[in-house]
């Protein structure tokens, strides 16, 4: 059982994702914008952060991920992506995009669970 924060501006995606992760026994807290999301992470110290790449601005998900890392928050980040590739952002897990993995929308529940469990496992081993 882990504590997971999901930050996405789409309430339906939050609902569906929460339910999937709840069904696996995880506690889920959600926020619909980067500012609330940041505060939620600071206040709750989750085991995993799920972050949408595009909320108010086309790439504010990236900036929020960078902000977490600058604040020395090392929790694994799983990023939801949709069409960011075509907007011209080079994809990859590196310094500019300091996240641990991606899930492409629409989200397959089994894939989501698989990636979440994998990241939680890695965190435990560290």
């Amino acid at each position, binding site marked *: 059982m882990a504590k997971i924060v999901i930050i996405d501006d789409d309430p*339906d995606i939050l609902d*569906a994702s929460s*339910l*999937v992760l709840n069904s696996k026994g995880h506690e889920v807290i959600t926020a619909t914008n980067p500012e609330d999301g940041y505060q939620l992470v600071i206040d709750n110290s989750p085991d995993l952060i799920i972050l949408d790449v*595009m909320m108010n601005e086309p790439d504010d998900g990236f900036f929020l991920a960078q902000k977490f890392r600058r604040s020395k928050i090392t929790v694994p980040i799983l990023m939801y992506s*949709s*069409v960011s590739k075509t907007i011209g952002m080079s994809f990859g897990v590196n310094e500019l995009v300091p996240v641990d993995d991606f899930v492409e929308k*629409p*989200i397959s*529940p089994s894939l989501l669970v698989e990636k979440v469990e994998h990241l939680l496992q890695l965190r435990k081993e560290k």
Partner: protein
Amino acid sequence: MPGHPKVLVVDDEDLLRTGMQRLLEMEGYAVDVAANGTEGVSLGTKGDYDLAIIDLKMPDKDGMEVLKEIHADKPNTVCFIATAFASFDTAIQATKLGADGYIPKPFSVEELLQQLQLGYKKRLLLLETERLRKDRENRLLEIAFERTRMNTIVNALEDGVLVVNKNGEAVLYNPSALKYLPLNEIFIEEFIIPKLNPQIAALINHYLLAEEYLPQSFSTQLALDETNETFIQITCSPVPHPDGTLAGVVTVLKNITELKKIEQLKSQFVSMVSHELKAPMAAVYGYLKLLSDDSITLTGEQRQKFIERSEFRLDSLLKMVNDLLDISRIEMKTVHREIIDLNLSEIIKTILELFSLEIKNRGLIVCFFFLENLSSIKADAEEINRLFTNLISNAIKYNQTNGRIDINISVTENFLVTTIADSGIGMKNEEKKKLFHEFFRAKNEFTKEISGTGLGLSIVKRIVDSYSGKIEVESEFGKGTKFIVSLPFRTSMKIEYFENEK
């Protein structure tokens, strides 16, 4: 004599002069006579005579002098010297001084006519020579003129032009070419290929190094600077010799920065659209997966909610596609417009009636002020309806419960001005800037529950623009928003243009 050659007879002997005149006129010549040298010069320099017969010895002026003065002005008049003191010496002297022939006195009629006939042939040859010379001069002038004209045109072109011969030496260029290549200077006949951007050099070398003449043109695009601020398109075309071999290559450099920008905006728009279309699909997909997943137990209430949410998201997806189609129709100017006299106050009343249930549910007070007979406008009913439906719908959606909406139609000199003010949530300055952007929607606590495609105001703006109108917005965060729409009374040029396209 065909063509009636003009002859001038200059002789101080009356009998001879008139006799010659009668004789020549009978033979078909047009004859003028002069009784002395001075008169002869005066006539001979004024009229353009084919032939002149000049007596050598005259009291006032020597015949040779007369001939010289006539020739100075009319070099192509064929002149004969006639003299009674015929001698070999005078004949030589006369021809030396420019006489075309020599007529000894007394002369036989046959002799005279034969001389004149030969003289006239010479005259025709002289005239032909003169004509050819003038033609040639004119052509040279024309060529010189053509060359300066071409240079002027080439130099004035916004596109860069560089012409090289088959050895790769510069033959012609214009100032724009220097700008786009970019080079500080080009020397005519210098081997220019190594100084060029490798991509341009390669394009030109394609022709220069080919074994056979390549008839087709080649194009490429490149960024002029590393910051990708200026883009140029380079097109090379071969120039053939008449025998079909390569004479040189013309390179045209065109600044396509603006086109590139539009292209970029278009791709950005496509990305935005894809993202906006994908969001509701992802949501519905997520719900369907949950509904069909046996490992997840859902309550009946949850099932019902997921189905309702899915329907809601699909409905907004449909609305968005319809809005996008409208935008594309307005952009492509294929909207079939029917410009008729409309009464704007009637249209707004109808819209308010359609929204009456929403207005009642939210407890809104609507005040509509207009002057009877002062709200007519020439426009397409459907578009005007769409314009104000979108604005009024926003005024309802973004209002506070129990708020108010003030609608006012007024008239200025050229415009019908409609203001729609709500007492709603208002906008922050940065939101106001993006208001008319596609897919922009203010996101905050108030707007969370408000549905919309993010295209409504973008359509409003496009409709207003297409009527050469103006839309302004005043807003204060937390207090309300006021839209001011000014539409011209008269049908503008733009609208007529649309009509012609039907």
